[in-house]
């Protein structure tokens, strides 16, 4: 492990650097705020000859993912990036990428879905493709966005997985905010990600194949199960790769980031950048003698139910913070945590916060821990009970 100096950069710039170091073969992409700095930075590296990808300027995100599938299955390491409406337009093809087992790595700058149209962060775009069968990893800050992006190709291309991996970072809060980031050396990343290899390349004229075939009722169910099994296996594969990455970088990762959860009486479960704010409040409350903790979910898909239950079963209350709502139903993260804790007897409450980029302040987190927050944190108007 080489100690590298910290550099000031945004999450978008950090992921562009990770892409330069990974040096994918093909990057089909369409710009959209707040993802644009990622691909703008990477395109500059290609223009300067510092990255060697075929940059395909497609006409839409639907085409971006379609081209990505072709490139990935033809035998080229493929990356792309999108946000919000781009992911919505791409959604049809995201499902197909997962079912064709195309190991594409995609950076997502999380942004609220329209409408009303908005450019700021929430997780509704990721949740739109929640059930597509792709891996979804959530970063807390620019460093995590960089590190998870470096790990992602190995996870996507692992023979037990072979699925798209989405590395999600909160729009603007991470994509556009500069903070100190430690990058690995270029050759360290090259060695870590290694070469691109698929069990069966599409463009192999000596052994031609049909990929993405029609499946009737006699095989659709089986092929879906095969896909869900691969996603289940991705949990252990990610944990193993994270350990290998820790040896290289000195930075520990895993499907979960448990922060002072040990001995916690009350614990929050969250996704993404709000974890940084919550950790600060946890520290303050611990100093004040209150046994609080944070369980940050890094791998939302696959979801680590067993580990969540093991870590939270001794808490007296667990509070789930969702940055996406599910109108008329349980919010997505709440539903997962409820499933994980269903037979533990732990008291569970849920809040929705931060839609469309509404900030979550430390005082909000204090009110949440104190049990004084409403169902919708930071919402004006008539109160909505939890």
């Amino acid at each position, binding site marked *: 492990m080489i100690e590298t100096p910290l550099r000031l950069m945004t999450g978008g710039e950090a992921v562009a650097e990770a892409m330069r170091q990974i040096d994918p073969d093909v990057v089909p992409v369409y710009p959209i705020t707040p993802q644009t700095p990622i691909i703008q930075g990477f395109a500059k590296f290609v223009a300067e000859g510092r990255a060697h990808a075929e940059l395909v300027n497609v006409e839409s995100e639907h085409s971006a993912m379609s081209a990505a599938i072709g490139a990935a299955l033809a035998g080229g390491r493929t990356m792309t990036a999108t946000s919000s409406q781009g992911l919505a337009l791409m959604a049809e093809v995201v499902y197909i990428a997962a079912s064709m087992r195309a190991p594409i790595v995609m950076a997502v700058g999380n942004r609220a879905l329209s409408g009303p149209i908005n450019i700021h962060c929430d997780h509704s775009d990721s949740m739109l493709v929640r059930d597509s069968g792709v891996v979804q990893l959530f970063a807390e800050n620019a460093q995590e966005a960089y590190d998870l992006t470096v790990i992602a190709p190995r996870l996507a291309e692992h023979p037990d997985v072979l699925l798209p991996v989405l590395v999600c970072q909160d729009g603007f809060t991470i994509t556009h905010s500069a903070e100190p980031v430690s990058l690995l050396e270029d050759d360290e990343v090259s060695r870590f990600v290694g070469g691109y290899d698929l069990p069966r390349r599409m463009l192999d004229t000596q052994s*031609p*194949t049909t990929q993405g*075939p029609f499946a009737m009722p006699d095989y659709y169910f*089986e092929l879906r199960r*095969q896909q869900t099994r691969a996603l289940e296996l991705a949990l252990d594969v990610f944990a193993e790769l994270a350990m290998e990455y820790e040896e290289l970088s000195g930075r520990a990762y895993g499907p979960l980031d448990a922060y002072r959860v040990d001995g916690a009486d009350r614990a929050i479960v969250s996704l993404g950048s709000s974890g940084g704010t919550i950790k600060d409040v946890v520290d303050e409350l611990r100093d004040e003698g209150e046994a609080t903790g944070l369980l940050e979910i890094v791998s939302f898909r696959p979801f680590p139910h067993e580990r969540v239950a093991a870590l939270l079963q001794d808490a007296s209350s667990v509070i789930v913070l969702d940055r996406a709502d599910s109108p008329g139903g349980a919010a997505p993260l709440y539903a997962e945590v409820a499933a994980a804790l269903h037979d533990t007897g732990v008291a569970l409450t849920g809040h929705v916060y931060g839609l469309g980029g509404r900030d979550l302040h430390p005082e909000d987190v204090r009110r949440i821990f104190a049990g004084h927050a409403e169902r919708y944190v930071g919402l004006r108007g008539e109160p909505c009970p939890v």
Partner: protein
Amino acid sequence: MPELSGWNELPVGGVVVPDESSRPRTGGWRTGVKPEVDLSKCVNCLLCWLYCPDSAVELDGTTFTGFDLTYCKGCEICAEVCPVDAVTMVPEEAAS
């Protein structure tokens, strides 16, 4: 009915390899008519071979020899494209 595979026995992503793609006997779906050729009219232009969506036109090297009814679905494209009307569609029952 061939025995169906379980989910864990299928190739990753349901990829079909050449051996497997020859297994479905698509001739069983035939529409009720099948192509018949009058070899005395055939000029061996191979348009039928080029157009056949099921690769059901048989060749000996580059010479037309006939139709493989194991895979022919009776779509009639061969009869349509034949420039010398050597191919005609005939009802299954009446076939010689």
